[in-house]
């Protein structure tokens, strides 16, 4: 098991290194922050002065090595858009908002998708199953920003049940969390349903039924426990994509998390913050998948021996 964990960790570090190269290259390929920071009537002297001040006149490899060296200790430099703040500081300040929203979205996804997937597998072909199929289809078809605006218009503007947008308690989180969760509900429902259908058709489930085990125990104890491996595997993707997928929803709902931060930083070409937020997303995604890999190996020993 230790060897398995070590192998996975080393893969993670290699991936992280590649990501640093990609992040640095892409952020610089989009242009210079000077163009975003300086006004339309900037003089050549202003351009030169700020370029030197920000260290952008140094060769790219020097800038990259400095970035890598500093990033290793969590220092991504100072934000150019949020002056007076470090890039990492800005990200950390906005992180709790994203985690809260993402956490609620994960909770909604799991709470809705798992029972829905299980029940539609049990009642395969029924109206309930077809309804679940429609929900899944719509969920995967609706763009999150569109769904967000529609939810806002119906439940906040027209009915007045929730605030339209902004940062606050649970009432502020419900609409954006639903907008974020909807797609994942669709994906997770389909995964759970297909996994359950496969397991429900196995010999040991049939045997349990023949032995007179109650239907509830057959479904939740024998079938679901085994079928759960597939949704658990997906959980890493789910957690990661809910975090990174917050970019659009946070923008629509003016939710001040890392997603909105990423958009603002990209618009303002705030390289330190862009790099910081993308690295954070990457680390989170890698960690989530690492944990899932380990969990998977614990649940299914065949994985770690393969």
């Amino acid at each position, binding site marked *: 098991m230790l060897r398995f964990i070590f192998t996975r960790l080393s893969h993670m570090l290699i991936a992280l290194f590649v990501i640093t190269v990609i992040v640095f290259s892409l952020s610089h390929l989009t242009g210079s922050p000077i163009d*975003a*920071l300086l006004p339309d009537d900037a003089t*050549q002297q202003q*351009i030169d002065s700020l370029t030197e001040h920000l260290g952008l006149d140094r060769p790219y490899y020097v800038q990259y090595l400095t970035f890598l060296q500093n990033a290793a200790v969590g220092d991504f430099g100072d934000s150019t858009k*949020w*002056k007076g703040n470090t890039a990492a500081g800005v990200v950390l300040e906005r992180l709790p908002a994203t985690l809260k929203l993402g956490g609620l979205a994960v909770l909604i996804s799991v709470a809705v998708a798992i029972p829905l997937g299980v029940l539609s597998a049990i009642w395969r072909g029924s109206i309930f199953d077809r309804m679940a199929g429609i929900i899944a289809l719509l969920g995967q078809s609706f763009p999150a920003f569109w769904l967000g605006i529609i939810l806002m218009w119906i439940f906040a*503007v027209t009915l007045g049940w929730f605030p339209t947008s902004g940062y606050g308690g649970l009432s502020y989180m419900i609409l954006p969390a639903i907008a974020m969760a909807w797609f994942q509900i669709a994906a997770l429902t389909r995964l759970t349903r297909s996994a359950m259908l496969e397991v429900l058709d196995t010999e040991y489930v049939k045997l349990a039924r023949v032995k007179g085990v109650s239907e509830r125990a057959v479904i939740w104890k024998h079938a679901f426990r085994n079928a759960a491996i597939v949704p658990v595997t997906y959980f890493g993707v789910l957690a990661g994509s809910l975090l990174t997928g917050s970019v659009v929803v946070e923008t629509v709902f*003016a939710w*001040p998390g890392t997603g909105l931060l990423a958009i603002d930083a990209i618009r303002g070409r705030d390289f330190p913050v862009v790099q910081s937020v993308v690295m954070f997303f990457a680390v989170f995604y890698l960690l989530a998948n690492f944990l899932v890999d380990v969990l998977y190996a614990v649940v299914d020993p065949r994985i770690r021996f393969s």
Partner: protein
Amino acid sequence: MFASKLVRVAAISAVLASAAALMPAQAQTIEMVMSPPAVETNRYWNTPGDFALGPSMQGLVGHDPVTGAYDNSGLAESWSHNDDFTEWTFKLKPEAEFHFGWGPVTAADVVHSLALHTGPDTTLNGISQLEGAVAEAIDEHTVKFTLPAPQVDFLFVHGGRGSLVIYSKAQFDKEGLEGYDAKPAGTANLQYVERNIGQGLTFEKVEGHWSGQDAQFDRLELKFVAEPATTLAQLLSKEADIVILPRELQGDALDAGFEAIPSTNASNQTTMLFNGTFLLPGYDGLDKTLPWLDIRIREAINRSIDRQAVIDVLYDGRAEILPVFGMDPRHEGYVPELAERFEAAYGYDLEKARALMAEAGYPENFSNPVIPILSSTLAGNPEFPAMAELMQVFLDEAGFQTEIVEMDWASLGGLRSAREAKMFHPMRNLPVKPSAVGIRNYYSATGGPRNNYEDEVIEGLMEKYMVSIDLEERNELAGGIFTRVFEQYAVAPLASISAEVIVNPETVREWTFPGTTSVGVSHFGSIVPAN
């Protein structure tokens, strides 16, 4: 029995009434929603000028809320200049004080602020007006600016769109820049409470403000919302009292009973630039394949544009046709005849446009006949992408070959810096700047590298204009430049527009602002609540 009941009810009512009287009056908060600024910071010199601390900070010079004229509602009670406009002396108001007990505003604060604003990290628009300026404290309340060249428009630096906001030196000496980041002391009748990064800012009323004019509400919350549909939703749900909305969404708000309050003066001019028209002799970088180097093509493009349709579509009919981009009746060099001649010279006339194109041999005689039209977004001008599409429709109709080039505004800035922005692209003049600044920015090599048009005649006039201290002569020279711009079809001027906010009339009764800042709005302390 009935009497005793009545007595009990009366007694309970009295108790409730007295309890209500003892409760503090509900604080009135005005919530305003706007686009996030380009840079979120308390350090003005690190912004391009779209400063969100406008409600609490001031410059030396103010503006009349109705006319927009410079007045002494800022920190200086009076000012004077020497004969050649190279020395400007400001007398500070002795009663002006910084918030949070940081003491009176003195000449030392002005000297300190100038040093901050002209440092190497400055990104301010128009900072070139302060290049080489030296501020000297004559006495505690008198400060003199010595300039390397005459500046007739030096008050612009200190007004609403200015490049110099006054910070407390005492606060800096004790707390450093971190003090400004945490709680900057301003001088206006609203003071800083907090900044929530990515969300907005909160200000509160200064009780017994030194100016004698207290705000009529308790708190002002500025909220940053990037998505216009969300901003509209906040207004319609009455969460926000004031919003800045793109014009295409304003109709929904007005239909729902909300009201528009425009600035009292035009705050913005929009145009399409023929970038890359660098016609100075000897300039090596000129791309001779640009079709609009031919004046007939520039005129034809101008005549292909139905400006009234542009105004109806983009500005909901609430704008004026602009005769010359950069020219304004409030500033020197205004030539009323150009406005009168506009229809004859620039009016929508497809036949004339096609005749000009034929005369120029378009497209056969052009190695690169395609007109690249830039579609880009810029905070404060959400209409630019629609403007690009409209231009394409008009130009296609006339028979031009066009293509839309999508690009973010910052990338355009990079191309302009490299003098490679060879496009027909939108531009704004926000707020409407003094003529010298506008001419420099758009029509003269002195505004390089980001100018878009140069020719020998304008350069000759500009040379004299920059050094002239005779107001009459300056007026003539600026007028001459604008006439040249007009006659050369140097740009395609479009509209002169006011800044507009949409308010909930149930909570906001009145707000008078002159449209003299980069965000269009100002004079926050004069917002009058409905109650």
